[in-house]
């Protein structure tokens, strides 16, 4: 059997899930063992009683090349000279530049045959950030928005800072969509700079007087509209209180990585993205539910190998250090880390050394939150046919998954009933996610 088409697992008994034990029983013909297997499986499952709590998305905007990152095919024509490196999990290769991530492979799994029906950046970004294709009559919420909407527990009330954060946002940070703008991601830039807009522009006594005056003016406006039942609940200054709470909260320090010792900071790389990943850990520890950190520059229509290598140099230390730091702080079991872009890049190199858009089998890395490390789900063909439509190309993949399956996997791990329907503001019932969890990851 071709090695490219295998699913890898680390094999440790502690990684056996109920599903895998049942599958083992079924596949081996030992169906008589099913009651025992069920008992064993339930026991295994009971050990994992807590769901994941939060998500960190390392968003690689522009679409990384799967062949130079998470799905190398060294020595083949489609590699076009790019090399691979072994990892600390037998049989799993990464792109050449992932020196540090290769050492964390036992904690990371790869999904290697993702498919999307969108080959345009904007539309594909929407698709992978929301789990739905663009619909001109509706804006779907980004995954971080949905998580904040669904997970609102006692601990969330103690979080003074926004629970959905986008660091170094590109043009399409996560939006609340039909859930409302309140679920939009809070945007910050390089964490070595102060968080924008959280410091009053005038000295405190003047600020307090301004706020006193503001209440006088607002009350005057609201007084004339107290009998308006239509805007009750939306007409008010609720966010003023939330904003002031955030401005005075100690939790705001979570954004500030300058207090982290230099040595620890530099492990993530001396880059805005590396600092963003470090800030992400601190924010998750503070109670933030979803942090997205963007690394752009992956749209390599020319000079692919060199440009991808430059991006990987930034990604590798940040990703590896993020996993290590989460482990060190005992947060990896409760935090899902996802790393990928909107689609992949063509297996063939174009005349200017670039790879173009390829939504017909691309890869992401995923770790933490109960997801087992050291596994590979799905495989792409090492010698895809040049001609063919999307359907033909999907047939060349093994165990492929549409992007919404990643969403279902994450929601499932967080304990969110992803099949439930929510009503949009116009009363249209919408399922949270139409994908299916990728069970092999657990």
């Amino acid at each position, binding site marked *: 059997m071709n090695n490219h088409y295998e699913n890898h697992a680390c094999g440790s008994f502690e990684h056996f899930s109920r599903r895998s034990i049942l599958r083992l029983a079924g596949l081996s013909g030992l169906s008589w063992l099913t009651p025992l297997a069920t008992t064993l499986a339930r026991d295994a499952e009971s050990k994992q009683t807590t769901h994941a709590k939060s998500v960190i998305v390392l968003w690689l905007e522009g679409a990384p090349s799967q062949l130079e990152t998470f799905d190398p095919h060294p020595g083949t024509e489609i590699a076009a000279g790019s090399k691979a490196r072994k990892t600390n999990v037998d049989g799993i290769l990464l792109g050449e530049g992932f020196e540090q991530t290769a050492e964390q492979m036992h904690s990371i799994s790869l999904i290697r045959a993702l498919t999307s029906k969108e080959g345009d950046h904007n539309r594909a970004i929407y698709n992978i950030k929301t789990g739905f294709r663009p619909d001109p009559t509706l804006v779907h919420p980004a995954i971080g928005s949905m998580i904040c909407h669904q997970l609102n527990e006692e601990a969330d009330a103690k979080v003074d800072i926004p629970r959905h954060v986008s660091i170094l946002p590109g043009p399409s940070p996560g939006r609340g969509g039909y859930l409302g703008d309140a679920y939009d991601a809070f945007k910050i830039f390089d964490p070595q700079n102060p968080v924008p807009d959280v410091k009053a522009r005038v000295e405190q006594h*003047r600020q307090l007087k*301004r706020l006193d005056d503001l209440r006088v*003016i*607002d009350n*005057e406006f609201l007084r004339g509209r107290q*009998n308006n039942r239509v805007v009750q609940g939306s007409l008010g200054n609720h966010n003023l209180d939330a904003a002031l709470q*955030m401005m005075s909260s100690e939790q705001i320090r979570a954004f500030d990585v300058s207090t982290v010792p230099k040595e620890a900071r530099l492990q993530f790389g001396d880059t805005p993205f590396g600092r963003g990943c470090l800030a992400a850990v601190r924010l998750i520890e503070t109670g933030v539910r979803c942090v997205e950190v963007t690394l752009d520059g992956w749209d390599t229509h020319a000079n692919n190998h060199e440009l991808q290598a430059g991006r990987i140099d930034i990604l590798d230390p940040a990703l590896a250090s993020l996993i290590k730091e989460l482990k060190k702080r005992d947060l990896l079991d409760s935090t899902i880390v996802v790393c990928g872009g909107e689609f992949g890049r063509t297996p063939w190199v174009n005349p200017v050394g670039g790879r173009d858009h390829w939504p017909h089998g691309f890869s992401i890395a995923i770790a933490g939150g109960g997801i087992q490390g050291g596994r590979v789900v799905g495989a792409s063909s090492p010698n895809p046919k040049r001609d063919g439509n999307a359907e033909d190309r999907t047939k060349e993949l093994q165990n492929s998954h549409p992007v919404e399956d990643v969403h279902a996997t994450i929601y499932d791990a967080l304990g969110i009933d992803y099949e439930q329907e929510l009503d949009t503001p116009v009363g249209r019932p919408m399922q949270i996610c139409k994908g299916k969890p990728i069970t092999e990851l657990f």
Partner: protein
Amino acid sequence: MNLNAWTKNLFFIGLAVIGFATLTVFLMATDRVAAPESFAPSSKAQFAILNVAKTVDASFKQEWNQKDLGMQAAGRADDLTIARRLSLGLTGTVPSLQEIREFESQEPQDRIHWWVSHLLEDRRTSNHLAERFTRAFVGVDDGPFILYRRRRFVKWLGDQIHDNVRYDQIVRQLLTGEGLWTDSPSVNFYTVTIGDTEQPDPVRLAGRTSRALLGMRIDCLQCHDDFLGTINLGSADDPTGGMQTDFHSLAAFFAQTNVSLLGIKDGGDKEYQYQLLEADEESVISPKVPFNQELVDDNISSLQKQLAEWVVHPENRPFARATVNRVWAIMCGKPLVEPVDDIPLEGPFPQAMEVLADDLVNNNFDLQRLIRTIAETEAFQRDSRADFEITDQHVENWKVFPLIRLRPDQVAGAAIQSTSFTTIDATAHIITRLTQFGQQNDFVERYGDAGEDEFAARGETVTQRLLMLNGEMIDDRLTTPLNSPVRVSVLSPNTEQAIETVYLATLTRRPTAPELTHFKSQLDQLQGTERTKKILDIYWTLVNSIEFVWNH
């Protein structure tokens, strides 16, 4: 000191006094706003518009009677509130102090007519309306690199609106344009849909045409027949359930639209093929409009032209209704039928929509006339407050003016304009306009663009609140010496005048007695820089108020 030195000193003092006086006059009177050429209060056209506006109001009242809702309605809002609504709706910003003074100098009975005439001749209005229509026609995405030029499209549309080109003619150009996306900007309607196939996408074009031009959401028919009974096609008198083939038959009109190095072209004999839900393979689907088939001119050979003539046909009511609904939404922040692009073919329709659609069709699809008519209706001019409890029923039936949160671009536009005495329009200094352009874009990016669906209800975010409280743009607008906040402090002859100026500039109204007392007691005690700081603080307070970010 000799006589010569005294002369020089007196000359200098004189110059200073003249300079100060000039600045004071600038504050108090400012430049006159040019009289709008189309302002003709006694003209036949204006009488006709007022008559249509009365018919619209009568139709609302007739509906209240029919629905047994009673005749209780809010009174008329004051002139300045109506002026603010019009300015926000048509230009995306608030009136300048300069404009307010000119507005108030008009005869009370002519003010609204004067104001609408002034705004319709202002390039800000055509630019603003063009951006609103552009969002419906091509969306907000960047689109395909090289092949798509959104800015050119907006500029082209703005020119058409400014020149008051018939709206049906604009739509004809949109649907039948050929050529390069740079030289023939209307073809960006097509090029924005170019995707993987490297050709315009008939499916996306069908969806756009239906929603933006006909006010009908039939997108779900792309994948399946309507099983919810929410989409009726056929004809208004004889509706039939929406079928998947209805959508793809509309898409088939775009099958022969192709792109090459010469740009967009219509022609050839390419047929539209699609694999329907229950089919085993693709089949050829012929072009067919989803309703009012009798209005199609079979003598037109070009599919694009055939479709265009059908869309804008005077008897194709969904086109006129969609236009009225969108313009109403742009002016009021809320359409007559919600969502703005989902008007059922068979109704029911608000009678006001039918009156306005008739008038639009009978008057050469004149958008400016439509805007003038809406502005003159009682419905548009009603107060958002009432002495009775306001419920959904009152708002849905336009018995009060709805309270609508401003869009991000309106918040930015209002914040920038309110800190300038003079109008930031096409005649403003280039540096002023460049500054405004940069500040507005930065602000909207951080505040969060409303996207394509601009008329959906939105909430405020913590990010937005923080940006207003502590953001760079607001602070910069307040503290830059050349902007009005600092100048109000220096030039206002007395405290009352200073407070009134700040209120007019920001909220387009004068302070209430309690508000005036509140701030006067604070300002009267201060002098010099402390007074200036306090005036800046009042500005900041008003810009951060709830009232500032709502259209009322």
